[in-house]
């Protein structure tokens, strides 16, 4: 048995219905190919969920958690990805918006681990010297 089959299968209607009732915990669910276009999913927790090929374009994903989620081939165009948690997620072949352009990520995505970030952040925290 693979991990995939153990995940609870939900459809978009289930998620949106539960979300409307105040549920935010969708961890470890199977949401492959789900249609979430333009959906309000603020603050929802999709960590370790499978969202392969899901369409999340134009969705409101502020404070949404995709830690360790499988977003292979997912469409994330026109979503604001600034305020999400996405550590360890798989974004191969996903579509994301950068600037005015939708790009398809071809090939693998490599996460950069903490050390280099730490150095960077330290440097970035220097005081701006201009007025």
């Amino acid at each position, binding site marked *: 048995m693979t991990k995939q089959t153990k995940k609870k299968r939900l459809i978009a209607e289930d998620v949106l219905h539960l979300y409307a009732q105040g549920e935010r915990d969708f961890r470890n669910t199977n949401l492959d190919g789900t249609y979430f276009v333009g959906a309000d999913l603020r603050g929802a927790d999709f960590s370790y969920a499978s969202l392969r090929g899901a369409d999340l374009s134009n969705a409101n994903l502020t404070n949404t958690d995709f830690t360790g989620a499988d977003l292979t081939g997912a469409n994330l165009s026109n979503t604001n990805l*600034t305020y999400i948690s996405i550590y360890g997620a798989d974004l191969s072949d996903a579509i994301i918006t*950068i600037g005015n352009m939708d790009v398809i990520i071809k090939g*693998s995505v490599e996460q950069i681990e903490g050390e280099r970030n730490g150095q960077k952040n330290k440097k970035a925290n220097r005081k701006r010297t201009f007025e």
Partner: protein
Amino acid sequence: MDKKTKKLTAKELLSRYRKGERDFSHLNLSGLNLKNASLGFAYFTGSNLANANLEGADLELSNFIGADLSGANLKEADLTQADLIGAELKDADLRKADLRGAKLEYAGLFKAKLDDAIIRLGNSDFVIKGKWNRRK
């Protein structure tokens, strides 16, 4: 003095930067060779940097709001936390550039090369290995 029409040389720009000047907004800096230059924390708001060579340059936290960077060479440039809102980056070469925390809203990235660039999505940094294909 009319800042808009004044064209700086690379030497002049770097010398002014070393002396502590950080405001290089609304200047014509097109085509300048600024390879590996250290120009972080500076303002290039609305400046013309078209076809400039900024390969490997340190542009950390610099401000390029509304600047023209079309055709610029930004290979391996450090653009961490740079502000590129509304900047024109058409045909720019951003391969291996570090765009972590850079603001790219409304940036014109048509035909820009982004292979192996580092971007931040949410709380994590990613390198995109291989090609970035513009969506058809």
